């Protein structure tokens, strides 16, 4: 079973996404912030893909993505964003791409968009 890491500070969204991905036969570990995500990556070296929010209170995804890639250069990263408190969605996602995210999705996205993006990333 493919193991994914989900980083998002919104607990409701995290619960929903985990449930949705479980039903598609992915194993999901979910955490609420970048630092917890980095800890999880040390513990579970079978994680192949990280789905991370951008605008989070302690550390943003834009700060987090380079740290994740430093630890795990071959891991795939999907950045998701619902727009920032000061930045717009497009801008925060572009920033995520600049620091190394492999794919970007704007919230709210459809199940199909999410699943096809994950599949594409895992096959490259």
């Amino acid at each position, binding site marked *: 079973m493919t193991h994914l890491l989900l980083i998002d500070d919104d607990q409701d969204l995290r619960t929903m996404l985990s449930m949705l991905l479980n039903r598609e036969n992915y194993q999901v570990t979910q955490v609420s912030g970048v630092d917890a995500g980095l800890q999880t990556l040390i513990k579970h070296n079978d994680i192949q893909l990280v789905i991370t929010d951008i605008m989070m209170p302690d550390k943003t995804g834009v700060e987090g993505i380079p740290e994740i890639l430093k630890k795990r250069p071959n891991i795939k990263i999907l950045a998701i964003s*619902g727009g920032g408190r000061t930045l717009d969605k497009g801008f925060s996602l572009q920033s995520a791409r600049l620091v190394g995210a492999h794919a970007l999705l704007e*919230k*709210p996205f459809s199940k199909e968009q999410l699943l096809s993006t994950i599949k594409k990333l895992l096959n490259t």
Partner: protein
Amino acid sequence: MLQTPDKSKDPLRILLVEDDPMQRYLIQHFLAEPDYKVFTTSTAEEGLKLLSLQRIDFVLMDVHLPGMNGFEAVRQIRTLDAHHWRPIMMVTSNDTAEDWENATRYGADDYLVKPLEKHKLLNKIHILHRLYLAYHRQQEDKKIQALGHFAAGVAHDFNNITATISGYAEMLQEELNPESFSYQCSQEIIQSVKKARNLINSLLLYVREEPIDFQPLQASLLIEKVAQTARIKARDKVNIKVNIEEAAYSTFIQADATQIERVLDNLVVNALDAMPKGQLTLGLRLCKSTHADGSRQLAISVEDQGEGISPEHLRNIFDPFFTTKDIGQGSGLGLSIVKGIIEAHRGNINVSSHVGLGTLFTIFLPIME
């Protein structure tokens, strides 16, 4: 409560505190112009009371008064105005270093020595008033920025919530027979979430103080680009025609290409919505500006052969939240955003329409000579 002066066309409301009837009369006489409305009191105590009852934009304060003196009165006004500023000018017959220093220390913005001369008084009032207007414009800008910041925060949380709702609805659908009523209901949930997302995005566009990235822009190229997008949107149903005047072809404007493109796309989408078939014409021509200097401007037009807009709707068409579409179909923010963007480019936008014949939007933008 913050008392905001209403633009520069209103008379400036001045409080004059002066105990000498002769001086009071003289200053009132100097200020007997439509630009000023003068309220007078002969003591500082009365003056302070009046400040709490009337909107006052400007204070003229004598120094030597019976009871509370002018310096103390100025200090009290500054305490009263903890969160905003209004100009205070002191007037005295004492041209001493001590009084000048005190005026500054107690918070006055300027100081005039009697005997007063009309032109000096008016000149100083004028300068301080100009600062006052600039100060208020800045306060307004700050309010808009704060609103934008707030809206961005709401949008972020809102998008998380809509993503959660539609995610659950989609999972629900998997369990359901597409023919069933329950499936239809989940489909409606997903559709409504899409509308909510569009609404919050339009709202963000409206309140966001997006800095305009002014660059030289060849308008004709942008129009051709917009026409291409329009052709894709129109499929074969509507014929898209581009009409660029030769003289206007290589004319440049100072503009934010992304924002002007957004404006034109918005007008094109509206036009296509209004006409199931027919012709949509995008035009570009040079014309004289309304300025007396004889400068020229570019006119960009979007003309449809749709159903037209009735005169009573036409009046409100640029108001935020005005829409004729069904609830959920349009947020009504489109044209108010269009107008805002054009005005930020120092241009303007006109509309004319005939019911049954079609609608013509014309955007005027200053050109780079």
